[in-house]
């Protein structure tokens, strides 16, 4: 029969047309997307900050009680690190899990390499870091945090820096390690003594300086990655002035948002203060008294404001510091148990998660008016795809 090939050809044409035609509403960029962690439910919400809405919910991500997210450079994929060692690659466009592995027993976060091809996870158990192919999540190599024979440390503060390197701190070892993944299957690591109990770290936006906050002593350890052979030095040493520390009911978090107006703005440990240091000389220039133990001290992208949230039991409060006046200019409570904040990339609005109020608030950073409230189940971290374009995120 001659009709059959014609019908087959018609079917093929229709089929191809069906594949090629994407509904216009599904065509969108990813520059305004983000994820909100729903920590107890093991889910993420996919959100957008052009009109401040939630687009979808993606379940099945395991224990997200200390979740962290890093993004592919095209802004399409969110790599979600769960407390239980889960690493989940979420497709923000199809709004589905693309791949998921359990890579460790207890994990705290991770970061993406300069070239976007490696995902590196930092783990508490077994202590160390692991590198994965960003496309397939295949394990390429690992660096156990074995700082003395048979002794392993928890890894904190992992940050990507130029040259396919990752910098991180070892809590028990009191060291900063720099691992070069130029050959991802044969990483090369150098070690630098840092100080007692580094609890987190950050890299400056240019990728030059790594700062590790110390819990076991008053001070910050600073490593110049342009001249790592000079070793880590201590800045803001003795900021506690020998006074009795206040109890710390939650560890602060550091990341590259700490630089603003030529200064570094850092949480003090065991003091209700934000420490300010000149970002060239690293000398202390001021201290700003605040309402509690700071957890996140986060500069608005233009650097004119620094927003601060607090550890339990002051965690319903948020304070805003004016970086010119170096004092608190606004205090408010967006909800109960404010766990995280994320600025929109140009800083005109900030998203705040209130775990115990089960909502995310979007607040205008000029008027401090609430622009939107999104329901969320015990939300914690909020992460926007703009992180994918920045060093150290």
């Amino acid at each position, binding site marked *: 029969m001659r009709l059959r090939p014609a019908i087959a050809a018609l079917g093929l044409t229709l089929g191809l047309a069906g594949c090629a035609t994407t509904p216009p509403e599904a065509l969108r960029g990813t520059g305004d997307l983000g994820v909100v962690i729903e*920590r*107890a439910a093991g889910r993420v919400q996919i959100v957008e900050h052009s009109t401040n809405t939630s687009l979808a919910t993606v379940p099945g991500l395991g*224990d997200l*009680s*200390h979740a962290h997210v890093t993004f592919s450079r095209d802004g399409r994929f969110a790599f979600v690190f769960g*407390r*239980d060692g889960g690493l989940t690659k979420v497709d923000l466009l199809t709004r589905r899990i693309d791949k998921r592995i359990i890579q460790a027993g*207890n994990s*705290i976060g991770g970061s993406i390499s300069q070239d976007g091809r490696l995902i590196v996870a930092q783990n*508490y*158990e077994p202590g160390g870091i692991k590198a994965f192919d960003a496309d397939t999540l295949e394990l390429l190599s690992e660096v156990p945090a074995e700082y003395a024979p048979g002794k392993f440390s*928890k890894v*904190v503060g992992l940050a990507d820096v130029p040259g396919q390197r990752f910098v991180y701190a070892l*809590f028990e070892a009191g060291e900063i390690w720099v691992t070069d993944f130029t050959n991802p299957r044969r990483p090369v690591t150098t070690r630098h003594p840092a100080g007692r*109990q580094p*609890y987190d770290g950050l890299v400056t936006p240019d990728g030059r300086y790594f700062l590790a906050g110390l*819990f076991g002593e008053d001070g910050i350890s600073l490593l110049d990655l342009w001249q790592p052979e000079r070793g880590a030095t201590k800045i803001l040493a003795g900021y506690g002035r020998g006074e009795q520390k206040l*109890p*710390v*009911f*939650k*560890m602060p978090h550091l990341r590259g948002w700490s630089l603003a107006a030529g200064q570094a703005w850092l949480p003090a440990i065991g003091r209700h203060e934000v420490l300010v240091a000149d970002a060239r000389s690293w000398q202390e220039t001021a201290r700003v008294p605040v309402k509690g133990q700071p957890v996140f001290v986060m500069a608005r992208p233009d650097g004119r404001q620094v927003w601060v949230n607090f550890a*339990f*039991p002051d965690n319903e409060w948020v304070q805003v510091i004016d970086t010119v006046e170096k004092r608190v200019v606004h205090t408010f409570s967006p909800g109960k*148990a404010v766990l995280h904040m994320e600025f929109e990339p140009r800083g005109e609005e900030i998203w705040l998660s209130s*775990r*115990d109020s089960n909502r995310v608030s979007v607040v205008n950073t000029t008027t401090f008016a609430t622009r939107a409230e999104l329901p969320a189940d015990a939300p914690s971290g909020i992460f926007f795809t703009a992180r994918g374009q920045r060093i150290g995120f």
Partner: protein
Amino acid sequence: MDRSLLIHVAVLLGLTALAVSTTQAAEPAPARQKELVHMVRQDCGSCHGMRLAGGLGPALLPERLADWPDDSLVATIIHGRPGTAMPGWQRFMNEAEAGWIVARLKQGFPELD
């Protein structure tokens, strides 16, 4: 009424009140239990993990705690452990409540509602 009898009655009443309050302290009221479960899972959880499987702080699961005497665990909760990141929580609970938490941790801690 005889004065000494009055004192006896007063003492008895006092002892009864004390006994009642001790029992109540050993077993916090249901609403307080809920608060304590929330505090352990969410706030202790920021270091120990919401599932108490550990984080910067050690795991608080039954198999991990089995060999620790209750009173030393209660002291750790109330006073913290110097030299570590563990703070004392005496501002937020009394020893009886810490004891209730320790007992629950050893059995397998209640879930959040």
